[in-house]
């Protein structure tokens, strides 16, 4: 058997030697640290400022979501998935609902699917905004955070009006939607898009050509597409490495195949490319929402699903393109009202594995930048 360990440029097994052999510094970054985006603990081995290696310790937020799923009915479990990636709750819900719909062999009606796409893409924008703000904050630019939060508020207002919740929305139901859109929904979303388009330019004005930003992000945390694939890294990180792969295009779900949008890719796979990719993704999301609003059909919002859901015995894996990467659900049904096993394939968890590879040989400050650029949410990493 050939050894197909494909991690190219770094040998993760052999530790690097420090400058002064006796003086290797072991630093515990987190779990209480302002820049680890939650309760991630990173044990850094440093030679001065240079990172010799690191180990992630996770699980501080472990709530046993998968176990809970086995003890709740399909409908009851739906709100729980919102709590994993709490900044992209709508995407989580979409993935879960579609998976169960697959098990039930039903499909949401077109209007529901369009509304789902609108809300999910709004959610992608919101998630990327939060990422941008915190990432910039980590790198020391404190102002973009407030700008992004100001604009994210508008999205949350739409959510609040639609379903009453802002963060953990529980917007979708298995089989479609619970609520019809409120009066003026389309107009408000349209207003938001018009409001938001110049805001992206504003963010870019602050950062894209900023010399310090360029120096801090270019060439930092490089990862090749090959390494990304080997480590299972997906989402904007993979795309920034030059791999044109997006589940919305590769294996379209909901009604994404009706919409015309681009998949942004980068060339270098560094932090700056990931930043650019996400910025373009926000613009593309605006595009998708616009098309979805234009093509929003009339009709029912709920497919015919039984009140007591008992999917036939079987198992299904379904994944969607969450803002952070491939979010997959693997649900095993035994024909009863409760799933026999729910497995979530969280993008943050898998992407976080690449941290070691991306940080080797870089400086402490780059670890922060890379954690930021991976865009992890610890609620999803630990589940």
């Amino acid at each position: 058997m050939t050894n197909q360990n494909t991690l190219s440029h770094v040998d993760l097994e052999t530790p690097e030697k420090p400058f002064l052999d006796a003086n290797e510094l072991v630093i515990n970054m987190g779990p209480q640290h302002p820049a680890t985006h939650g309760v991630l603990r990173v044990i850094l081995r440093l030679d001065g400022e240079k990172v010799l290696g690191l180990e992630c310790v996770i699980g501080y937020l472990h709530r046993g979501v998968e176990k809970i799923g086995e003890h709740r009915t399909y409908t009851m479990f739906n709100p729980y998935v919102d709590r994993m990636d709490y900044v992209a709750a709508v995407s989580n819900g979409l993935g879960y609902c579609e998976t169960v719909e697959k098990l039930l062999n039903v499909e949401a009606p077109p209007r529901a699917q369009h509304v789902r796409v609108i809300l999910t893409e709004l959610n992608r924008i919101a998630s990327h905004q939060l990422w941008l703000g915190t990432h910039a904050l980590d790198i020391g630019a404190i102002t973009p955070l407030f700008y992004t939060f100001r604009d994210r508020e508008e999205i949350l207002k739409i959510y609040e009006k639609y379903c009453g919740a802002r963060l953990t929305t529980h917007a979708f139901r298995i089989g479609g939607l619970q609520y019809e859109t409120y009066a003026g929904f389309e107009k408000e979303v349209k207003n938001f898009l018009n409001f938001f388009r110049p805001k992206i330019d504003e963010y870019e004005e602050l950062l894209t050509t900023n010399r310090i930003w360029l120096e801090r992000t270019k060439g930092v945390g490089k990862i090749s597409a090959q390494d990304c694939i080997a480590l299972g890294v997906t989402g904007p990180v993979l795309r920034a490495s030059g791999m044109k792969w997006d589940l919305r295009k590769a294996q379209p779900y909901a009604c994404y195949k009706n919409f015309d949008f681009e998949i942004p890719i980068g060339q270098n796979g560094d932090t700056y490319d990931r930043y650019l990719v996400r910025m373009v993704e926000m613009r593309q999301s605006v595009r998708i929402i616009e098309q979805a609003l234009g093509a929003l059909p009339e009709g029912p919002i709920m497919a015919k699903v039984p009140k007591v859901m008992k999917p036939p015995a079987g198992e299904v894996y379904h994944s969607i393109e969450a803002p952070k990467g491939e979010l997959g659900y693997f649900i095993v049904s035994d024909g009863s009202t409760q799933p026999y096993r729910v497995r979530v394939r969280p993008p943050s968890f898998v992407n976080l594995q690449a941290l070691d590879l991306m940080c080797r040989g870089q400086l402490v400050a780059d670890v922060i930048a890379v954690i930021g650029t991976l865009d992890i949410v610890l609620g999803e990493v630990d589940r």
Partner: protein
Amino acid sequence: MQSMLHITTLHYLVLGAALFLLGVIGVLTRRNVVIVLMSIELILNAVNLNLVAFSHYWQSMPSRLGGGPTALHGQIFSIFVITDAAAEAAVGLGILIAFFRNKETVNIDEVNLLKW
């Protein structure tokens, strides 16, 4: 008592000598290389003190003896000594780092191999 209240050049010289002795004791007795290097700084400072004190003394002398307000040769020399101290500290600490990297100690007793 009178001699205690008038600070003469000799006072500075005695202070310099005391500092010098402290430095010598430090160099001769300590094992830690860093402290030995610091003791050398003490010695250099004692010398500097003497130089500046003498320069001060010379400024009060008549100019036919080479004194006068422009007789600042001692101060010039002390500036050179400070320069030298900086060079010495840089090289000495460089050697110390190289030594520490190889032997993992800062003990001067172990610097007797002339190789590593």
